[in-house]
């Protein structure tokens, strides 16, 4: 993690340099000679904490602190006053909103250091908790509340989000002619940033689908639009995502898909397990990437399994990763299981050397009924 940046505001150059010297060992230190100077510095880089004198020329510490309180971007920066005026009046004035501590000169350096450390720690805990809360909220919004209920089919999915996980997403839309668009994707990156981009991205994909479905039900056409958007949109520029778009027609027992660098779907039938091999380049990398539709027929009892890379990258006992081959092996017996995804994930963990998944894991199972297949999951 990067060092915390501390801004020291002090007109006495001896004290200023002493503080810089002591703080420099643990922190990234910025300095300013008065309040005005400090505001300029903050404009350039927002510090993680401010230590400020009160009496200074041009703009004093009180005026600086009031100016920071008035701006929502600087209001929460921890603020410590450092002053020679040990009298009660100054202390009262110093004990105003947004001042976290008040230390009198001549000050004990160790005491100042420990207070700085405590304040930064408190800030860190607060940020981590907030991040986790937002992360959970995003994760939930990146997944649907319910699945389509279609005669002759069972559909199930499971998703486990890790805090250090990324931007896995899954969504579905019903078209006017009772077919379905299923979207599975993974926005590259980790943590809150990836989840935020995934969230933004999914909103766009929903909008695009809504518009495009009036003209075409080609996943490849939609994929091309999404790729252009990623390359040309200012917010999403430098965002990359693997994506699997499935157009499922239950009446025709067909799934047509386009795959942009995503984990390849697996078809599990009574007689064999095979990988739907065709895929194209990942999204966000090249203009004019061409995407192709591939149609799969779903025979009686056949299941289609789609998933994200967290499953594939689960480490095994021998140090290698589960991989596509591993998933193919594990998927085979799930066809006749009453809970195929639960069984798949449990068996992935049973061959792993860890007790939990290391990354976000998302898996979807779509299966056409026959006599042997349990009706739901």
């Amino acid at each position, binding site marked *: 993690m990067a060092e915390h940046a501390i801004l020291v505001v002090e007109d006495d150059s001896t004290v200023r340099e002493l503080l810089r010297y002591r703080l420099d060992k643990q922190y990234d230190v910025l300095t300013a000679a008065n309040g005005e100077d400090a505001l300029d510095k903050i404009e350039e880089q927002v510090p993680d904490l401010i230590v400020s004198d009160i009496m200074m020329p041009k703009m004093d510490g009180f005026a600086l602190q009031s100016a920071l309180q008035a701006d929502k971007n600087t209001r929460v920066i921890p603020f410590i006053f450092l002053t020679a005026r040990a009298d009660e009046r100054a202390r009262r004035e110093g004990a105003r909103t947004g001042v976290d501590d008040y230390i009198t000169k001549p000050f004990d350096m160790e005491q100042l250091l420990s207070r700085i450390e405590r304040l930064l720690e408190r800030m860190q805990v607060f940020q981590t908790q907030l991040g986790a809360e937002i992360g959970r909220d995003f994760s939930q919004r990146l997944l649907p509340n319910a699945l389509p209920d279609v005669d002759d089919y069972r559909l199930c999915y499971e998703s486990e989000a890790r805090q250090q996980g*990324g931007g896995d997403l899954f969504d579905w839309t019903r078209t006017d002619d009772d077919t379905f668009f299923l979207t599975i994707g993974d926005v590259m990156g980790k943590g809150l940033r990836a989840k935020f981009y995934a969230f933004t991205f999914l909103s766009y994909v929903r909008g695009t689908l809504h518009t495009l479905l009036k003209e075409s039900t080609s996943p490849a056409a939609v994929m091309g639009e999404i790729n252009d958007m990623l390359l040309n949109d200012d917010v999403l520029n430098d965002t990359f995502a693997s994506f699997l778009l499935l157009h499922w027609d239950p009446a025709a027992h067909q799934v047509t898909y386009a795959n942009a660098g995503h984990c390849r779907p697996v078809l599990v039938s009574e007689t064999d397990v095979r990988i739907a091999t065709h895929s194209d380049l990942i999204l966000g990398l090249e203009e004019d990437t061409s995407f192709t539709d591939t149609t799969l027929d779903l025979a009686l009892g056949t299941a289609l399994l789609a998933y994200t890379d967290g499953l594939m990258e689960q480490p095994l006992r021998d140090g290698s990763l589960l991989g596509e081959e591993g998933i193919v092996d594990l998927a085979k017996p799930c066809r006749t299981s009453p809970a195929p995804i639960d069984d798949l994930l449990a068996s992935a963990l049973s061959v792993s050397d860890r007790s939990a998944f290391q990354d976000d894991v998302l898996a979807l199972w779509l299966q056409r009924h026959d006599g042997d297949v349990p009706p739901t999951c």
Partner: protein
Amino acid sequence: MSFTVEPLAPDTVVIRMGEALDFRNADDFKSTFQDQIDADVRNFVLDFSKTAVLDSTGLGSIFSLYRQISPDDGQVAFADVSRPVQVVVQLTRTYKVFRQFPTVDAAEDALISA
């Protein structure tokens, strides 16, 4: 962890990728190549001989590099690609964008004579 950079020509460098490029060190890799781009380097040979881990965040950082240099006709070449890296490259179909060479020398010959 830091990355070793060796110049091959005024606008070409090789970066030794080490054992892993993942969410833990992707930002280090970004600042490594950014310094090179700022110094007008446009061709990058990435030596993957020792790389056991390449996750999606790591791959994303390579994409960022590519997006920056491709408008200037720069290239990103993969050299001596280990098996785990090969799997990721296949899966994401990025071999369509990044040329691959058996060795750093072969990549150097191809990029510099081009």
